[in-house]
């Protein structure tokens, strides 16, 4: 159906698209490929990029294991306090991330009870990789849990009911019916969460300035040496993020064809 409003609305919307696209494009275009290659070859940069990707992936795996069962319960069961639980999941999105970092430090730091318990097991959070992982987990888990919950909600509960009458236990009905049908949503939640984790700065920088993840490295170079020095790293991170983002979107679309 054609609508006379589409054209003016699209013109207004184009401003937003420009606002997102142009700075990114400018940054990418400002550095020569040679310079980018040299930057990537710097051990500090390569390590930071790898660490960022790995830490975010680890946070996503933790959320997958702990968050998908929770999402299933939220989608299927009604219980007192459900709205409260859903609000708690969404809370990290509204809390300033530096404040979230402080809050995590209180619990997982050297003086926190949990931090001490983990320290006894030889796991440190402050200025260590586990700290980066929990910071990323905290700020991005809502993406995965909410996507998975919506996925399970879109699966007709009667499919699982039929599976039960055909001999499946609840555990089997979950794995063979509910999970495969919600998988597309879960996968898109995984991508969003992982991408959100990659870009986290505020919470990470408070728990672990070192070892340095890419956003912290960009910040440090900008603070210490200025724009020209920070830009190649920024460009590199933008390019890699875009590449992985589109790759995963393509993979997830392909996976849902069957």
């Amino acid at each position, binding site marked *: 159906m054609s609508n006379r409003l589409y054209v003016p609305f699209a013109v207004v919307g184009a401003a937003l698209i420009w606002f997102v696209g142009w700075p990114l494009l400018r940054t990418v275009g400002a550095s020569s490929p040679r310079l980018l290659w040299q930057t990537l070859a710097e051990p500090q940069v390569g390590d930071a990029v790898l660490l960022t990707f790995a830490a975010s992936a680890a946070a996503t795996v933790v959320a997958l294991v702990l968050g998908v069962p929770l999402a299933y319960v939220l989608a299927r069961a009604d219980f007192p306090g459900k709205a409260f639980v859903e609000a708690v999941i969404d809370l990290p999105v509204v809390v300033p991330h530096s404040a979230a970092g402080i809050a995590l430090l209180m619990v997982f730091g050297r003086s926190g009870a949990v931090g001490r318990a983990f320290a006894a097991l030889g796991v440190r959070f402050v200025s260590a990789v586990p700290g980066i992982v929990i910071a990323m987990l905290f700020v991005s888990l809502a993406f995965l849990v909410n996507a998975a919950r919506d996925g399970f909600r879109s699966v007709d509960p009667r499919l699982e009911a039929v599976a*039960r009458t055909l001999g499946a*236990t609840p555990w089997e009905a979950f794995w063979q019916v509910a999970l495969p049908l919600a998988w597309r949503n879960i996968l898109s939640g995984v991508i969003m969460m992982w991408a959100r984790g990659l870009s986290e700065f505020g919470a990470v920088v408070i728990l672990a300035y070192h070892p340095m993840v890419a956003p912290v490295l960009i910040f440090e170079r900008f603070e210490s040496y200025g724009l020209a020095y920070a830009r190649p790293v920024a460009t590199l991170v933008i390019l890699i993020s875009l590449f992985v983002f589109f790759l995963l979107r393509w993979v997830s679309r392909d996976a849902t064809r069957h």
Partner: protein
Amino acid sequence: MPHATNAGALRLEEVRLRLGAFQVQGLSLDVAGGEYFVLLGPTGAGKTVLLETIAGLHRPESGRIWLDEEEITRWPPERRGIGVVYQDDALFPQWTVAENVAFGLAMQARSRWQRAFPWLGGRARRAAARDEAVREMLRLLRIEHLAHRTPAHLSGGERQRVALARALVVRPKVLLLDEPLSALDPQRREDLRQELRRLHQQLGTTVIHVTHDFEEAVALGQRIAVLRQGQIEQVGTPEAVFRHPATPFVAEFVGTRNIFPAWAEPREDGLAVLRLQGLTVVAPTPLRGPVHVAVRPEDIVLSRVALASSLRNTFAGQVTALEPRGALTYVTVAVPTPQAAALPFVAAVTARALDDLALQPGEQVFLGFKASGVHVF
């Protein structure tokens, strides 16, 4: 197919359950093994909740459920051997027809390991999909050619057949059908109705069929239970329920109808000859064999003299009852048949017509109705 005659007897004792707006209140029910039992009731009568409780998907607050000699009240659905077919079939959309049907077999054949790690079950299901039992069931439902399609590529009637095959392949003791025909168009509905009758005769499975459609209940049910707000108003043969409604609710829900079992023989001209205990009625229907014939009381014309021949179906009978109901009076006319007792036809007559006819019980009268006024199902 071997089948013990009385297996699949189901008994509900004082089952009580509340689920949202629906409730079942102290409901008792006895369904014989191998019986085709229909639960008839208006929307919102708690029919689906009752069915899901029998399947084990809801646990009753009190009361007991027995299957043959065992109490199954607290058994999980996967242990009961009770199959379910829903109104909109609920096929697994991600699998082919053969895999859908194979699911229950794969469940029966699985190992302890597969039970613990069910994400490994895909291979077993695909193997089961090639099983002879699956092919046989697809053949029985006449959907062999659809084996490799996914549910998105099936018509409504085909989907229901797949859902039936999926439920039946594991040889359930009881098959629960939740409004299985109501999502279909009239032609498919009639086809599937015949199919259900055939399958029941062939397999002898106990069937509990939920519907709000009285004709469907009459056509299929050996017995009918009329359900209202989670309680049973009346249980009996279709004949008993519509001839002798036990409560005003049943009478109103069932309506006053002339419904008779008959035998149909289609003719060349699109009309069929129907034999009702030796009476011959003509009506438009493609059906053949055992059917039911329904004539609305408003469509029956009464006369003191032999009726004009424009009415295809005319009979002579004797007035047995006059029952004034508002603007209409329901006149029962017993039409003698060569075979058995007289058939009671009910005609609705206006006050004025009644005056003109001056009918009294015991008097001879002629009744007639058009071929197009006869509904065959």
